[in-house]
């Protein structure tokens, strides 16, 4: 039997906020839309910033990459704060479970010696790469134009520090609860030749003042770093008897798949803009011209270090991954410079 609950029926005056009704018609809007679209102030600012009086506090000119309507971009994941923290809470919990399992069976310490060395000398230093990525992405949180892009940058920035903390926890477990390996990993980040390309790249990005080109450059590096460290090595670890590595890598892989969704959508939106697509294409080409070679070389150095430890053909894998990424960018109509590496 169905229970008939009687409630007072009240016809609403309107179904959503005016700005959304103007964009989409008077239909009920999602919480993503209400909490994200048109939130940032756009006009009648009062004062020029003391730290940079040539622009307003929110200004499309903080990047060469622009959108005629900043809200032509929306997050394909439709993330606002609440679902974001819920999603990350689950992801972090899953990671903790994996790590607890690895710790309870001492599985990290039972990996082949070479794989342990790889983790200590190559993987753990990348926690600093993640921390640098957080800083670079945070530039977008402050300086991008429009709340849909901002929210994506915000969540990505927080994700990167989360990734850095996950890698750090791996280091703590592998050192049996101490920070010994983390200290060594930091030295490696600062000094090991294989990591200097990535460190230099991030430091140079910290001196750029264009959040968009910073984001895109970082993304180029991410595609190659993640392709090598968490995709290619995931497979290689399983073949090499280092299942523990694979168990760690899968979590970063899952995160990166999520990250790709919004960045790919943003790049597509830039390139599809009805008025400034050409300028955006030129800006993206300029990034590629300036940085692609540097990124490929940095990751090639990283791959060489991987091979020095475990000899799994990482250099070749990095090269073919770079070619695949370049092909994807070319398919978008971008010009990827030839690199000799």
């Amino acid at each position, binding site marked *: 039997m169905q229970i008939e609950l009687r409630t007072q029926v009240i016809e609403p*005056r309107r179904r959503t906020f005016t700005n959304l009704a103007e964009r989409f018609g008077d239909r009920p809007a999602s919480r993503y839309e209400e909490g994200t679209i048109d939130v940032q102030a756009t006009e009648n600012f009062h004062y020029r910033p*003391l730290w940079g009086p040539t622009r307003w506090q929110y200004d499309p000119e903080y990047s060469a990459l622009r959108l005629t309507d900043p809200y032509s971009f929306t997050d394909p994941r439709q993330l606002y*704060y609440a679902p974001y923290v819920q999603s990350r809470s689950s992801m972090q919990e899953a990671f903790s479970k994996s790590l607890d399992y690895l710790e309870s069976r001492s599985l990290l310490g039972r990996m082949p010696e070479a794989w342990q060395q790889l983790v200590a000398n190559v993987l753990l230093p990348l926690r600093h790469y993640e921390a640098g990525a957080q800083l670079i992405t945070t530039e977008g*949180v402050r300086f991008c134009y429009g709340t849909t892009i901002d929210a994506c940058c915000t969540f990505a920035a927080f994700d990167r520090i989360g990734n850095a903390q996950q890698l750090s926890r791996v280091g703590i477990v592998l050192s049996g609860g101490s920070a010994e390996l*983390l200290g060594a990993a930091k030295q490696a980040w600062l000094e090991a030749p294989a990591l200097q390309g990535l460190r230099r790249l991030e430091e140079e990005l910290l001196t750029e003042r264009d959040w968009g080109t910073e984001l895109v450059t970082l993304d180029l590096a991410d595609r190659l770093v993640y392709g090598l460290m968490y995709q290619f090595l995931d497979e290689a670890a399983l073949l090499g008897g280092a299942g523990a590595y694979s168990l760690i890598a899968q979590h970063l892989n899952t995160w990166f798949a999520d990250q790709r969704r919004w960045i790919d959508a943003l790049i597509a939106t830039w390139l599809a803009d009805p008025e400034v697509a050409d300028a955006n294409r030129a800006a993206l080409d300029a990034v590629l011209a300036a940085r692609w070679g540097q990124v490929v070389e940095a990751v090639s150095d990283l791959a060489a270090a991987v091979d020095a430890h475990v000899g799994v053909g990482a250099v070749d894998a990095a090269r073919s991954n770079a070619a695949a990424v370049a092909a994807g960018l070319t398919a978008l109509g971008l010009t990827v410079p030839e690199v000799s590496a």
Partner: protein
Amino acid sequence: MTVPAQKPARKLSMKQRYSALTHDLNWTPTYVPEAEAFPYTTFEGIKIHDWSKWEDPFRLTVDAYCKYQAEKDRRLYAVLDSFAQSQGQLGLSDGSYLNAMKLFLQGIASEEYQAHRNFAYLARYLNGPGPRFAALCQSLDELRHAQTEIHALSHYNKHFTGFHDWKKMHDRVWYLSVPKSFFDDAVTAGPFEFLIAIGFSFEYLLTNLLFVPFMSGAAFNGDLPTMTFGFSAQSDESRHMTLGLEAIKFMLEQDEDNVPIVQEWLDKWFWRGYRLLALVAAMMDYFLPKRVMSWKESFELYFEQQMLGGLFPDLAYYGIRPPRHVEQAIEEKEILSHQAFWILYQFSHAAAFQTTVPDAAAQEWLTSAYPETFPKLYQPLFEKAQEVMDGGGRFFNMGLPQLCQVCQIPMGFTEPGDPTTICQRHSIFKGERYDMCSDGCKWIFDREPEKYVQAWLPVHQIYQGNCGGPTIPDVLAWYGMQPDDGGDYLGSADHQAWTAWHATAAKEG
């Protein structure tokens, strides 16, 4: 580097572990000059010798943060959903209550959002990893607050006037230039001033005066979504308060030369924030059908007792004194809410909320809360306004008021010691005259005239033809207002709808 054999190692303490997961991620750039990566932390004159001396006011890692916050939001959104499903708005104390929430959504949500953006500026550009990570967490929290406020009030928007175009209004409407210019001022300042302006003054010194009235008002008046939002934000706010307090102590401890700079910022941001709170004072004493406490009581408890009595004696150790012009704020506690409300009352035809003459019970309450000032100075105004109402009219001021160049509130505040004479101050800068509402605002102007002459003053802008046209309807249309948004509450669309719903409910019940 060799991996240690699985021998028992020195385990990290909780503090060391936190440090390993946060501070220790930092490194000092060597491929580029540090000053080029972090260029904004020197121009304000603040000297930081050792960023590692920053004491983390709380220890949160990303996994713990997401877990707590996800749990809180699950509960909050469950309440919002059930409130909407059950037409919870019918259980409010009165339809007029929502005028307070219109002011809240129009005035505050955008500022939560600005705080979000500018805490990210600190999370990127402070040199020290400790304060950077704390600022990053706060940046996320502020996005949460902006979004949860919008979501909490979204249901009311479907049934009431005034909520529907809050962002455009925030960018354009005269009374919203008060909070907007306040936050624009803060985010265009340097990182250290922002920490004092928002992190300390707003989030610590004045936060109870701002949030407690709105949230307690919600609780007293049956506004479950806002009340739940308020409770849910409380644990974030307590983190923000400890961050603000740590920030000021850190700056003061780093170098004695920082003390006079911080003092001036405190002086400025106390008065700036206090003037902004005039809107809150009016809301507390005049907008709530069920009142929580008077502005005067609130000011005495949350500011005089807790801050002047509790905080400033501690800060005196660093050479910090209570803010300049605080004695004027204390004196004004008897008159502030009435003067601010009288401004809102007479310009309600150009607002996206409604006001009305306080009814007999409300006037009685005002008399008991303000026995020295309300009966003598303000009740007569409302008696006159009531006479106009009784004659079928409504008193609106059809002129455009002069605005204070700094706080941007119409110049309706009075001289110290003389509550019947309007206070006017002015300064000449580069041959132009600028008017201010008070000694506090004049002092702020004179300290940074180059900044305040830039102010986008709504009335000036109307006269310059930048606001949709020369007539009031032109301007209101440009503001994004609809005909039902403003005016008197009695007889308004909201009032009529409220009455009709309850008549139906009574018949059916």
